[in-house]
């Protein structure tokens, strides 16, 4: 029963990782950019949510409705003015530039809010859970986060497959030049993809802040977990990302079951082994 | 010298998804041969070069060089065995000087060291008429000089089989004549040459065998003018019913 519990918790944790990963996956799938500042953006979003909650006295879920759209706008601007420019220089430059942004965000946070760790106040949700049986209890929070992840992934999937703009995103991901000659404004579409990615990472940041405490240096590990989920699941495949997140979550929780300090390491080892065996991920697929 | 063929392709096929770039190709080239290759866009000429040079590995079939199976060797290994190629879009080392570009080839492709390597490189630059540019970075060369650098770098590998992919494209008439002279000299040293070119007149003047490729298959192989005159080849180049059109 201990193991069943671990697997259930791991799967639910995987929802959070998938939420982190879908923006990364989208940006890599569409414009071949790995945003190394991804995790730090999530942490930044968590701090912003905290400011909204304490400033406006609203519950945590409402703060997400403020932070996510704001991040969307920022994402569009960052894509058009920073990432696009570095893409024009060389693909290596995007890595260096986003890494630089990562360090800058971390240290701005460090200066602005100190290194103390914080967490988002979730009120009664914090301790609420339902008991499946004597050994298996599930926290409402994890269920909410998992559901949010599934809803976000489904909406994204729906957007890409049905919406006019979503179709343009897929076309630009398939063939940049062909997209431009059928009249798609590729730079705008890239901006839209980045806006979505930033909005989802903001949601992930808020969810993360509900789940556990955070501090300015928490970003890189979020990035790594997100990337591991993407690679395990297969780049550009959204449902693969959910699967990847769940595999990573289960590996971490099972690892922690063996030895409390072995959890994260177990996740890394699963990732490295899979990377060695299948460099293209479990479900190699095109976007959507 | 061995009596066997220099290069032998046996039933080589290569697909990219549903596109077939080489359809069970078989081909024999002997030492010192000068072979021209023509074909419409997408006929698979450059892919065939890549299959010979090792930039691509075939889905099926075997490639033998001097009697040795090289199908599973990469392009660097094949180069060190004596197969050198040029690329249609030059792959110069932009931030290195012209001399250094060729020197890498002399060190690695030809396996020479020290003075022997720099002598070879210098000689090759003379041959390709790039001696004056020896110390300027490759990024400063114009397109025509870049094409010459491609040739020089391939020669720097001291190949026994040289694959030339459109080295004459964009050259003026006298430049093409000069290039043909250079390639004649290379041939005279016993190096086999396979030359893909759209400037058909450059080819016809120099090769003693012409291969026409279409749809990943060989549709003509033999004496150049005879190949160009054959109905199958005319069909591929000038259209399905060119004969009909010319009668009206």
């Amino acid at each position, binding site marked *: 029963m201990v193991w069943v519990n671990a697997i259930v918790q791991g799967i639910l944790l995987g929802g959070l990782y998938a939420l982190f990963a879908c923006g990364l996956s989208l940006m890599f799938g569409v414009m071949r950019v790995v945003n190394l500042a991804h995790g730090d953006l999530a942490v930044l979003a968590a701090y912003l949510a905290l400011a909204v909650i304490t400033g406006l006295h609203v519950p945590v879920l409402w703060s997400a409705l403020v932070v996510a759209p704001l991040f969307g706008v920022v994402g569009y601007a960052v894509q058009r003015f920073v990432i696009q420019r570095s893409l024009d220089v060389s693909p290596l430059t995007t890595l260096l530039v986003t890494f630089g942004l990562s360090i800058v965000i971390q240290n701005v946070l460090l200066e602005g809010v100190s290194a103390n760790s914080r967490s988002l106040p979730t009120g009664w949700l914090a301790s609420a859970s339902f008991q499946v049986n004597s050994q298996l209890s599930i926290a409402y929070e994890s269920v909410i986060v998992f559901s949010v992840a599934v809803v976000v992934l489904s909406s994204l999937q729906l957007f890409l497959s049905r919406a006019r703009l979503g179709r343009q995103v897929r076309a630009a991901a398939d063939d940049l030049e*062909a997209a431009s*000659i*059928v009249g*798609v404004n590729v730079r705008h579409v890239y901006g839209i993809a980045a806006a979505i990615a930033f909005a989802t990472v903001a949601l992930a940041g808020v969810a993360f802040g509900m789940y556990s405490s955070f501090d300015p240096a928490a970003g890189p590990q979020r990035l790594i977990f997100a990337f591991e989920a993407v690679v395990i699941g297969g780049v550009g495949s959204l449902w693969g990302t959910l699967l990847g997140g769940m595999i990573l979550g289960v590996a971490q929780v099972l690892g922690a079951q063996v030895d409390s300090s072995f959890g994260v390491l177990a996740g890394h080892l699963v990732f490295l082994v899979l990377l060695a065996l299948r460099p293209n991920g479990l479900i190699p697929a095109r976007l959507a | 010298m061995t009596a066997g063929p220099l290069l032998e392709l046996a039933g080589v096929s290569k697909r990219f998804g549903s596109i077939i770039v080489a359809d069970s190709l078989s081909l024999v080239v002997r030492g010192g041969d000068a072979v021209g290759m023509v074909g419409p866009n997408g006929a698979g000429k450059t892919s065939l070069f890549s299959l010979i040079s090792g930039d691509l590995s075939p889905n099926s079939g075997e490639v033998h060089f001097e009697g040795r199976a090289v199908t599973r060797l990469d392009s660097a290994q094949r180069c060190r065995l004596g197969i050198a190629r040029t690329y249609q879009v030059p792959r110069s080392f932009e931030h290195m000087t012209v001399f250094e570009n060729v020197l890498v080839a002399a060190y690695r492709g030809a396996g020479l060291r020290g003075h022997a390597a720099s002598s070879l490189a210098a000689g090759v630059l003379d041959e390709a008429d790039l001696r004056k540019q020896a110390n300027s970075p490759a990024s400063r060369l114009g*397109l025509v000089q870049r094409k010459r650098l491609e040739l020089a770098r391939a020669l720097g590998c001291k190949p026994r089989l040289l694959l030339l992919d459109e080295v004459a494209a964009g050259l003026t008439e006298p430049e093409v004549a000069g290039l043909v002279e250079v390639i004649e000299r290379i041939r005279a040293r016993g190096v086999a040459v396979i030359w893909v070119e*759209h*400037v058909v007149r450059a080819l016809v003047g120099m090769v003693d065998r012409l291969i026409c490729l279409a749809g990943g298959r060989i549709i003509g192989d033999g004496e150049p003018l005879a190949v160009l005159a054959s109905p199958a080849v005319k069909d591929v180049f*000038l259209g399905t019913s060119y004969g009909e059109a010319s009668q009206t």
Partner: protein
Amino acid sequence: MRYGLLPALTNVSFTLAAGETVAMIGANGAGKSTLLRAIAGIHTPTAGSIRLEGRDITHLPAHRRVAAGIVLVPEGRRLFPSLTLEENLVIGSVPSRRGSWNVARVFELFPWMATRRARPVVYLSGGEQQAVAIGRALMANPTILLIDEMSLGLSPAVVRKLYDLLPELLAAGTTILLVEQDVTQALRVSDRAHCLLEGKITLSGRPRDLSPSDVEAAYFGLAKSTAGGRG
């Protein structure tokens, strides 16, 4: 329309009149594709200018040229593999230009498409893919349609079928610039033809005024007098 210098092209100038079909023939490597891609806005010419109805569009990005009515059917089809057949057509209407083309009319033109509308395009044959590429371009209601190597990799029967569609497109007043290796087909359907060799126009005229031997000579670059010799 005027057109100038690119590395692969030297000082090429020509004009298109509304409603005519012009063929650009020549061996590969002659610069034909480069020319079409420059008109479509993928490359910017190093010198010279491109004008559409008197307006200078030399520096207009590709997607805005589509909105202005210049639409390219690219070499190798360039369909979107992760989009279905119908989506590949629908995305052609992104610039939302006014006109009579829509999915239903494309299906009228190619009835087989209707039954396979939800299929990914990778499962279509080469000829079918080419038809989708043409349909996609028509969805933008082009005033100038640029067609690059329509016959490439297709069987003669399919090529003929595709070319037989052109008059129907022309009926809508569309101007067509064809780049083609299949000389016979190109000459059959065009009002005027230019032969491009090594980046220069070497021969121009109405198809009926061009003799087959002139075309052959211009095409291979073998001057008639030396074609028989080795030199």
